C-alpha cells in the first residue's frame, strides 16, 4: 500500500470518505515525514499539535457523516499567509516573532472546508526571489538532484518551500502566491502543478503584501485535479479585499475532465527565443502535439510586447513594494533597532531587518517613484502594461482559448549558481511567467517531462480572465499524455 503521505489529495479524500484510514493516521504520516525532512528546510515551523487536533475534529465529522469538502486533508501554508497564533515571518528577520491575531481569508476558507494545517512553509523574503535563496531562514533544498550528482539544487521561488514540500510528500498540497511567477516557476522546477488564478479570484486579505496589483494566491499540488480541488476552496469573494471579484466560483474539479476538443491553442512566437535550450523547445513542440492529438487546434500567434514585460515588472513591482514595505518601521510589529532619534531608529531597524534583495527592490521602487522620475519610469511602465494586456486581448478576440508556452527558461539550478553581482540574471527566470501577472490573467504550470540531467520541466498554459476551467482541462490533457512525474526517492530521510 502507498504510504498515506504519498497519496494524491483526491485519493486521500476518497480514502477518508471510504474510511480506509483516519484523518489522524494521514496527519501522523505527514508529521513524521516532516520530522525526517529537516535537511530540506521546507518548513519554517511545523505545527504537529494543531494538525493532530484538527485531524481529530475531522475524524468526528467523518464519523457523523458531516465531512466537509477538504475534510482531514493535511496542507502546508506558505509563510506569507497570516495564521492566527502561529508565527508568520514572510521569510524576513524584520517579522521575527510576529504572531498574527487574525487569519488570512484563503487559509480561513481551507479550514472552513475541513483541511488540516501542518505548518508554515519557507519562501524568498517577502516573496522576492526565484530560488528561495533570499529567505532569512536558510535555503529550501529541492528534493530533486541531477542524475548522478549530490549537488543541492534550488526548488525555485518564491514559493520554494511550498513546491519542495509538495514534491517531497511533506503535505498533500500547499498554498502559494505568485507576483511574477512565484507559483508556476517553483512548480515547474519541482515536477509539481501550480496555478496562479485570475487577479481578483482569491482574496489577498491577510496575505503579506509585496506588489498589490500583481499578487495573487493559488495552490501547488501533485496533480491538476488536486490543484482544482484546492482552488475551489481558496477562491471566492471577500468584501475585505476591494480587488476581490464578486462572481461565482465554478466547479473547477468538474472542468478537469472536459478535454480540449474544439479548443484553439495559441503558440506565441515571441516566446521562441534565441538561446533557448533545445530540450525546452522540444518539450514545447511536444506539448502542442499532445493537445492537437486530443482534438485541439494549434495556431501560431503574436504577442508583440512580450519582451517588455520583465523590465516593466521591475519598475511596477518594486514601486509597489517600496510603498507596501514602508509599514516595517520598528513601531508596530517585529524587529526594532534603536537609534539616536526616531529617523535613525527607522533606518537602523530596516537596515538590520531587510535582506539584500528586499533592500534593492525597495530602493529601486523609491527611485522610480521619486520626483522627476515618476513619469519616465512608473507611468511609462504602466502604459506598457496596458499594451501587454492588449496583446492578450487581441489574441483571445481572434478565437484563441488558451496559450501554451514553456514555464521556465531552464530546469532547476544549483544553490549559489546565480549569485552574481547582477540581480538581473536571477530575474530572467520569470521571463515566461511575468507577462501573465502584468495582464492579470490565469496561468498554470504542469510537469511535461525531464531534461537530460533527469530534472523536471514544465509547460505553462495562459487563459482568458476568469477561465481557469479551460486551463485545468488543457493541463489535464498534458498530464495524461506526459504521465505523472515520478517524484524523487527520499534521500533526505
Amino acid at each position, binding site marked *: 500500500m502507498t504510504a498515506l503521505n504519498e497519496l494524491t489529495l483526491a485519493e486521500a479524500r476518497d480514502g477518508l470518505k471510504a474510511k480506509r484510514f483516519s484523518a489522524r493516521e494521514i496527519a501522523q504520516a505527514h508529521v513524521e515525514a516532516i520530522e525526517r525532512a529537516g535537511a530540506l528546510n521546507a518548513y519554517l515551523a511545523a505545527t504537529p499539535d494543531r494538525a493532530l487536533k484538527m485531524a481529530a475534529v475531522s475524524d468526528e465529522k467523518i464519523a457523523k457523516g458531516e465531512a466537509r469538502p477538504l475534510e482531514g486533508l493535511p496542507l502546508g501554508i506558505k509563510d506569507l499567509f497570516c495564521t492566527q497564533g502561529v508565527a508568520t515571518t514572510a521569510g524576513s528577520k524584520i517579522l521575527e516573532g510576529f504572531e498574527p491575531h487574525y487569519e488570512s481569508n484563503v487559509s480561513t476558507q481551507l479550514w472552513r472546508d475541513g483541511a488540516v494545517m501542518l505548518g508554515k512553509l519557507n519562501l524568498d523574503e517577502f516573496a522576492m526571489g526565484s530560488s528561495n535563496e533570499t529567505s532569512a531562514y536558510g535555503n529550501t533544498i529541492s528534493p530533486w538532484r541531477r542524475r548522478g550528482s549530490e549537488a543541492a539544487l534550488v526548488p525555485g521561488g518564491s514559493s520554494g518551500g511550498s513546491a519542495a514540500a509538495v514534491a517531497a510528500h511533506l503535505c498533500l498540497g500547499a498554498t502559494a502566491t505568485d507576483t511574477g511567477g512565484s507559483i508556476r516557476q517553483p512548480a515547474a522546477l519541482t515536477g509539481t502543478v501550480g496555478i496562479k488564478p485570475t487577479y481578483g479570484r482569491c482574496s489577498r486579505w491577510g496575505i503579506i503584501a509585496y506588489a498589490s496589483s500583481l499578487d495573487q494566491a493559488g495552490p501547488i499540488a501533485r496533480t491538476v485535479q488536486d490543484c482544482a480541488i484546492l482552488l475551489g476552496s481558496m477562491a471566492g469573494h471577500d468584501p475585505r479585499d476591494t480587488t476581490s471579484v464578486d462572481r461565482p466560483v465554478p466547479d473547477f474539479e468538474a472542468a478537469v475532465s472536459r478535454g480540449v476538443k474544439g479548443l484553439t491553442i495559441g503558440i506565441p512566437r515571441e516566446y521562441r527565443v534565441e538561446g533557448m535550450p533545445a530540450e525546452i523547445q522540444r518539450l514545447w513542440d511536444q506539448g502542442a502535439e499532445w493537445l492537437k492529438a486530443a482534438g485541439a487546434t494549434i495556431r501560431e500567434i503574436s504577442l508583440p510586447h512580450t519582451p*517588455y514585460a520583465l523590465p516593466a515588472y521591475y519598475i511596477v513591482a518594486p514601486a509597489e513594494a517600496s510603498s507596501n514595505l514602508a509599514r516595517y518601521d520598528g513601531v508596530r510589529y517585529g524587529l526594532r533597532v534603536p537609534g539616536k532619534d526616531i529617523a535613525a531608529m527607522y533606518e537602523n531597524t530596516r537596515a538590520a531587518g531587510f535582506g539584500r534583495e528586499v533592500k534593492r527592490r525597495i530602493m529601486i521602487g523609491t527611485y522610480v517613484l521619486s520626483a522627476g522620475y515618476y513619469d519616465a519610469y512608473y507611468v511609462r511602465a504602466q502604459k506598457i502594461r496596458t499594451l501587454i494586456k492588449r496583446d492578450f486581448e487581441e489574441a483571445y478576440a481572434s478565437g484563441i482559448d488558451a496559450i501554451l508556452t514553456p514555464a521556465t527558461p531552464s530546469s532547476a539550478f544549483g544553490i549559489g549558481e546565480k549569485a552574481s553581482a547582477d540581480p538581473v540574471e536571477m530575474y530572467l527566470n520569470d521571463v515566461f511567467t511575468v507577462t501573465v501577472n502584468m495582464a492579470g490573467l490565469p496561468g498554470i504550470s504542469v510537469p511535461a517531462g525531464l531534461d537530460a540531467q533527469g530534472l523536471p520541466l514544465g509547460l505553462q498554459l495562459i487563459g482568458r480572465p476568469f477561465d481557469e476551467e479551460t486551463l485545468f482541462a488543457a493541463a489535464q490533457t498534458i498530464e495524461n499524455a506526459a504521465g505523472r512525474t515520478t517524484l524523487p526517492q527520499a534521500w533526505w530521510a
Partner: protein
Amino acid sequence: MPAREARCYSPADAGRGLSRRAMERGTGGMSVDEKTVRRIAHLARIAVTDEEVGPLQGELNAILAFVEQLGAVDVSGVEPMTSVTPMRMKKREDIVNDGGRARDIVANAPDTEDNYFLVPKVVE
C-alpha cells in the same frame, strides 16, 4: 513600433551579456551615482554603510540598464493601466463595522504602554 524580436531572453548567456552592458553603462544615461544611492537609501529609511554604497550602486544600475529598453516602446496615446480587470471600486456602507481591538493591534509591537505604541521622543 513594438519590437518583434525578443531580447535578453536566454537564461544564462543573456544574463551575463546584460551584466556586462550594465557595468559598461555604469555612469551614462539613467544611472545613479554614489550620492544618489545615499539619497534613495535615506528616502527609503534604510541605513547604508560606506562599504555597501558601491555594490548597491552597481546593482541598482544593472537594474536601471535592464529597464532602459522600455524607452524603445511607442506609448503615445496609451493609457497607463490602473486596474488589470475592469472593475468599479467597491464602497462599503459608511457605518462602524469593526473596532475595539486595540489590544490585538498593539500585541506585536516592540514597545507599548496602555494600548499605545511607544516611539523615541519626536518633539523636544
